[in-house]
């Protein structure tokens, strides 16, 4: 199963009722995860992929849509993670 499908499965298991999740769906308004729900979702995704996301990468401004979430996870799964940005 590819990365995107696995993420969709985790999202559905976490209580999202949207049947057809698209890249542009907003994590908050469309998928129904508030800030704390989003973090819980990320921890579930970490467990599924056996990765650990750097706390400084949890920037709400960069995690708006499902597509953003997939990009973040791919960065870690495909081993391209770098701690960066203003907090590093």
């Amino acid at each position: 199963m590819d990365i995107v499908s696995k993420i969709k499965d985790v999202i559905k298991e976490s209580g999202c009722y949207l049947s057809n999740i698209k890249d542009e769906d907003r994590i908050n308004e469309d998928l129904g995860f508030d800030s704390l729900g989003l973090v819980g979702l990320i921890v579930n995704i970490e467990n599924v992929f056996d990765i650990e996301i750097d706390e400084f990468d949890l920037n709400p401004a960069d995690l708006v849509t499902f597509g953003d979430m997939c990009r973040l996870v791919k960065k870690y799964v495909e081993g391209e993670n770098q701690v960066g940005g203003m907090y590093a």
Partner: protein
Amino acid sequence: MQKKYTQEKMGITCVENYLIWFLMNQGFEVDKLYCDSYISIEDVLKDFSTGELGYENYQGIPRIQDIGSDLRCLEMEFCNNIGLETIFEHVNQDESCCLLAGMNPDFAKDKFNANLWRDDHFIYIYEVGENQIHYLNDTPAVDVCSDINEVKDYLNGTCILFKVIREIDENIFNKKMNILEKGINKYDSTTFDISGMKDIRSIRDAIGILRVSRKRLKCLFSNGSAKYYIKESEIFYKAINEVIFHLDGFYLFLEYCNLKHRIDFKKANVYMSLIKDSDMKWRNAIADYYVEGF
């Protein structure tokens, strides 16, 4: 319903979130109700440092319903032992009325697989048909149309009714704004060290409260019809957006640390430092605005 129920939450509790949404749809200048929403970083951190307070019970910022009642523009009534028939009557006969129905603790878990902060949970029922009920649920934020039978067994018989009486009295509002302005201008250069707070959830909750406070203040000072509208002040908007940006990031960071049961205080202090700096910038912008104007 005119506006989509979003999760850009300006409330601390579900009751506040529903009320804000209801008032917005009534065309009420809800931003003005944020005039009591300033609290200093120092005060919030001190309040939460005991480890005894929870986000959902925090009283350092008055509830929107209390401010509305205090400003004499909102009527609030608690009812017990209310049946479906009464709910039906209230919802369908008076559109200027907002009815929040109390639900049994199992409701959110059974229907939405959601764990809530507190046991008393409400839904906002806005339409009841012969067999169908339309309601909003706050966490997760969903607009639901369902069979009445799927909901009625969860109703616990309590409800809160809100009704708009009048718009906010300008004189009272202006007095409140004078108090707010003085509070904001007060020297607040916190030296509070969060490393001394061992409970990650307490730090998270304190930051959660600050986040709501600053988002509300941004709305308040952006209200074009208010006397206190900060017109075209690049300095103010840049600074308040900056503090909200850092608070959002820190809030996520802290919840992540909470779930992992560990915290790197070196990283946490980087956030705190950015938050303190940007918070001072917008407060200075307000102070300058009232002294000189931009």
